[in-house]
């Protein structure tokens, strides 16, 4: 399963969203993911993927606008972790 698919599954479970809406182009805004929801999601992503998201919610949201962005960010974290290079810059 791709990172995006795993992320979509997690989002569907966490936020009780219709999976049909969870496409890479979907913006966080359109899914009503605000800074508080983002804190919950970051927590869930850390648990599910075994990564550490160091960024403040505001920094994270400045960079991650869509679900596709979010999956790419998680991939970066996974890659950085695999190299033992710590976390990716937010």
């Amino acid at each position, binding site marked *: 399963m791709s990172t995006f698919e795993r992320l979509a599954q997690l989002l569907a479970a966490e936020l009780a969203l219709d999976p049909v809406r969870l496409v890479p182009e979907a913006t966080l805004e359109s899914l009503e993911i*605000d*800074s*508080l929801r983002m*804190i919950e999601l*970051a*927590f869930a992503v850390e648990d599910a993927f075994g990564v550490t998201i*160091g*960024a*403040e*919610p*505001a*920094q994270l949201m*400045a960079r991650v606008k869509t679900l596709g962005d979010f999956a790419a960010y998680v991939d970066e974290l996974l890659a950085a972790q695999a190299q033992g290079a710590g976390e990716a810059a937010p």
Partner: protein
Amino acid sequence: MRRVVVTGIGVVSPLGNDAASFFEALAAGRSGVRRLSGRFHERLASPVGAPVDFDAARHFDAARVRMLDRVSQLALVAAAQAVGEARGFLDGLDRARGGVFVGTGMGGAHATDDGYHTLYGEGSDRLKPFTVLLSMANAPAAWIALEHRLEGPNLTYSTACSSSAVAIGEAARRIAHGEADAMIAGGAEAPLNFGTMKAWEALRTLAPADPADPSASCKPFAKDRAGLVLGEGAAMLVLEERERAAARGVHIHAEIAGYGLATDGVHLTRPSVEGQAAAMRLALADARMAPGDIGYVNAHGTGTQANDAVETAAIKRVLGAHAARVPVSSTKSMHGHLLGAAGALEMAAAILALGRGMVPPTRNLRAPDPECDLDYVAEGARAVPLGAVMSNSFAFGGTNAVLIARAA
């Protein structure tokens, strides 16, 4: 409307345990932020904070200490200092017209944390007998009233990070409206226990420890700001009706000239330019002042990405062209974020700045942010004649409180 003045300032802070030492450290740009080494602190992702160097045994006997959470200990010592400085404050006071208003966000958080550790961590079924009395949020205000026998209104405000600015503003109103003659008003917070810090860590608002220099971890208004640093302490003011203080000939630090209270009403945690601006406008109107009358703004300046940009925009919206000229600083860069006690400690800093004609700096601001383009006094304290000062306090929950003091 009666006028309200400040005749006593008590401070127990990460930068010293009296008002003079506190301000001296601020002016020197010293930081009280350091690596923490208390119980379980090694399990924090970012084990930095701004603790108070405080030995309870120097102030209270053992039986008394068992009755007092750390937050009440800090509050009582700050209140006693303020009362001591406001010489004769209690003489001839109708005790029913003297009150205590305290702001605190978390209350007796050490007692709560200790209790849970005993129950869940140690598996014991026996809690300390006074756990309720230590942890209740109104304990600091109640103890101060008991200590100084003040029998008028006794209230505890909990509006998160604006709690003690609200306490001071509301206490000043009681006196202005003739419902009280003298009040002790301020805030206290003791959040450096493991449970409270972990809760803040989970909210992803705490700054990581600066790898080169932990004391520089809180960087308000800087491009590389990455969150707030928690601090503990208490600050208490003695507020009196002006004629009463003048008749006694006691030193008057300043007049409480304005108080503005406005709520964002849009989001639980995301700050709003309009909500912050509304509180500043109301405070100016209450003080009957124009933007140009404000000589210094002690900013809320938490060091989070969200607050500092929004606060900068709000200051510009309210002060207009004057915003480019007025010195604005965040003393949180040095004493950390005292949450419910922040408003009182920062109002104390602003009043001391007013009295001394000295603006404290914003420490750790080396990387400018285009979104934060005011004069943050980053280079060090600045001597400036001051006629009036503003102190901003904004909060989770959206309760924004702004206080203005005028030279007496």
